[in-house]
C-alpha cells in the first residue's frame, strides 16, 4: 500500500470521526444547531464533487451550481407534490396553470425523484461534456462555457414561472418520508443521514482518485496530448468524470433542499457557483477530503462572521480567495503536504543516481 493512500485513509477516518461523533457531542445533540451543520455537510459534497473534476482532471466547472440546483428542484418538486395532496401546487394556480405539467407527474414517486436528482444532473453534465471534450475544448474555455450554461439555465428556471415557481422557487414543502421514516430535519438522525452521505461520497471520491482512472485523469490534466498517444480516449475520460461530478452535485442539491425546506433559483446563481470554487480552493482542490473540509470551514466562518459583518462578508470571502490564490495555491492541503515534507526530510542520501551513460544491465541488453 502506498503512503498517500494510507494518509488519505487516516485523514478520512479522522474526518468521519469528527463529523459523526465530535460535532454532535460538541453541540450536545441539539437538533437546531446540528441542522446548521448539516447544511455545511451538504455543501461539502458539492465542493468535493468540484474537486473531482477541477482538482483531479483540471476541468474548472463554473456551472457546478446548475447541476446542484437541478438536484434541489427534483427533491423540492417531490415534496411540493406531497404537500399539495390531490390538488395542484399553489403557485401553479397563481400562474393560471390548469393541469399538472407532464414533467411534474413522475415526481410523485420517491424512487423516481431520487434517481432523477442524481441522473438528470449527470446526464446534462455529460451532454455538455461530450460537446466540449469531443471538440477538445480545454482550460479557461471550459470555465466560460459552463458559466454561460449556468446563467442561461438560471434564466430559464426563473422565466418558466408556471413550472418552477419562478423567482420565488418552490416553498411550502412537505416533510420527506423515506421508507416509512418521516424525516424531521431538526433531529439528530437527519444530521447522521447527511453526514453518512458525505462520508460515502468521500469514500467514493477517494476510491476514484486512487484508481487507475484517477491517475489517467491526472495525466490528462498535465498533458492531454501526450496521454492520447498512450491510447487513452481522453474525451471519454473527461466526460465520465464530468458526469460523476455533476451527479454528486445533484445529490448534494437534494440534501440541501431538504435542509433549507425550499428550492430557489439563487442556488443556481453565479455567486453561489463561484463560492463553491472558493471553498474548493481554500481546502485544496487536489484532495476531495480537503475540498470538503474547505467548504465546512468557509461556511462555518460565514455563519459566525456574517452576523458581525453583514455587508462586508462577500469582501472577506473575496480577500480570502485572493490570499489563497496568491500565497497558497494548493490550499490548506498544500500547506499540510509541504509541512509534512519538511518534517520527514531525511539527511541527504549519499547514494547518487546512475548517470545517463552507466552501462545497462548486460542481461537485458543482449
Amino acid at each position: 500500500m502506498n503512503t498517500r493512500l494510507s494518509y488519505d485513509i487516516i485523514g478520512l477516518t479522522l474526518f468521519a470521526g469528527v463529523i459523526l461523533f465530535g460535532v454532535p457531542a460538541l453541540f450536545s445533540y441539539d437538533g437546531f444547531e446540528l441542522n446548521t451543520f448539516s447544511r455545511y455537510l451538504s455543501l461539502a459534497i458539492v465542493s468535493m464533487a468540484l474537486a473531482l473534476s477541477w482538482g483531479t482532471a483540471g476541468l474548472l466547472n463554473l456551472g457546478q451550481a446548475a447541476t446542484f440546483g437541478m438536484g434541489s428542484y427534483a427533491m423540492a418538486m417531490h415534496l411540493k407534490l406531497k404537500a399539495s395532496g390531490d390538488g395542484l401546487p399553489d403557485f401553479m394556480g397563481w400562474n393560471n396553470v390548469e393541469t399538472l405539467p407532464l414533467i411534474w407527474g413522475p415526481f410523485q414517486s420517491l424512487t423516481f425523484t431520487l434517481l432523477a436528482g442524481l441522473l438528470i444532473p449527470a446526464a446534462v453534465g455529460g451532454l455538455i461534456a461530450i460537446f466540449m471534450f469531443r471538440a477538445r475544448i480545454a482550460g479557461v474555455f471550459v470555465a466560460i462555457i459552463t458559466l454561460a450554461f449556468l446563467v442561461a439555465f438560471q434564466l430559464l428556471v426563473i422565466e418558466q414561472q408556471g413550472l418552477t415557481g419562478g423567482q420565488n422557487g418552490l416553498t411550502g414543502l412537505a416533510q420527506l418520508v423515506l421508507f416509512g421514516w418521516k424525516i424531521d430535519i431538526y433531529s439528530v438522525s437527519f444530521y447522521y443521514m447527511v453526514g453518512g452521505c458525505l462520508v460515502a461520497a468521500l469514500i467514493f471520491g477517494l476510491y476514484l482518485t486512487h484508481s487507475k482512472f484517477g491517475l489517467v485523469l491526472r495525466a490528462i490534466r498535465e498533458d492531454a496530448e501526450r496521454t492520447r498517444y498512450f491510447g487513452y480516449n481522453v474525451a471519454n475520460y473527461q466526460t465520465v468524470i464530468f458526469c460523476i461530478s455533476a451527479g454528486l452535485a445533484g445529490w448534494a442539491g437534494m440534501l440541501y433542499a431538504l435542509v433549507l425546506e425550499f428550492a430557489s433559483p439563487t442556488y443556481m446563481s453565479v455567486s453561489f457557483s463561484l463560492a463553491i470554487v472558493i471553498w474548493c480552493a481554500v481546502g485544496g482542490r487536489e484532495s476531495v477530503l480537503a475540498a470538503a473540509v474547505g467548504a465546512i470551514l468557509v461556511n462555518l466562518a460565514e455563519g459566525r462572521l456574517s452576523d458581525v459583518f453583514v455587508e462586508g462578508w462577500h469582501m472577506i470571502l473575496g480577500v480570502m480567495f485572493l490570499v489563497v490564490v496568491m500565497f497558497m495555491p494548493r490550499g490548506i492541503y498544500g500547506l499540510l503536504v509541504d509541512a509534512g515534507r519538511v518534517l520527514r526530510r531525511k539527511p541527504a542520501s549519499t547514494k547518487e543516481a546512475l548517470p545517463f551513460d552507466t552501462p545497462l544491465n548486460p542481461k537485458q541488453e543482449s
Partner: protein
Amino acid sequence: MSQLQVRDLQVTFGGLRAVDGMDFDVAQGEILCLLGPNGAGKSTTLDLICGKTQPTGGSIRFQDTEISRMLEFQRARLGIGRKFQVPSVYKELTVAENLSVARSMKPGIWHALTHPAIRRSSKMQDILDLVGLQDKMGEPAGNLSHGETQWLEIAMLIAQDSRLILMDEPTAGMTIQETERTARIFRSLSANHTLIVVEHDMSFVRTVADRIIVMNQGSKLAEGTIQEIEANEAVKTAYLGH
C-alpha cells in the same frame, strides 16, 4: 509483408505542400531513419502516421488496417507509439505513476475504474532496473535530473510496448556517450519493435539505421542503405546546394 505501408501521402498547410506524395514501406523489426534538410517534412511525416496531423490525401496502412482517418488514441491502441522532440514525462506524477500511465495495454475506462493506480509487477520492476530508476519510484518526475528524465521516457516507451515507435530527434541535446548508449538500446529494441527515427546526428544514423530515406521539400529524394545514400548525387546537391 511490410508492417507499415505509406502510399501517395499528402498534406497541405494553407497552400504549402508539407508532404507531397510520400511512398514507403517499413518491415517488421526494421529501423528506418528519415533524413533531410529543415522543412523537408520529416516530423510532419511522423505526425501523419501517429495522427497528430490529418492527411489531405493518400493512404497509411498499418498491419493491413487503413489508419489515415483514425484518431490518435485509436492508432495508439493498434500499436503505434510516439516519442516527441522535447522530453515529455508527466512532471507532477511519480516515476511509478508515469510508468503506470505508459502501461496502457487496456486503456478503457472500465478497466481503469476497477484497477488501482499503481500495481507492482515484475515487468515494471524489470524496466525500472533496466534504466536504473528503482530507487526513485516514489519521486515526482519533475525532481529528476535531465539524464534521468530521458531514462524515464525510454522506460515509458518500453512499458507501452508499441509495435511501431516513431521518434523525433531522440538524441537532441545528448552527449556522445549518451547517444551511443541510446543507439545500443534502439538496437536491442528492434528485436520486437519497428522504429522510424528522424535524426540529424549522422554517426547515430550510421550505427542504428537499417535503411534511410532522404526527404526534400516534402517528397522522397533517395532511399537505401547508408553507403548508397552517401554516394547519391541528388542527396549531395540537396544538402550542399550545388
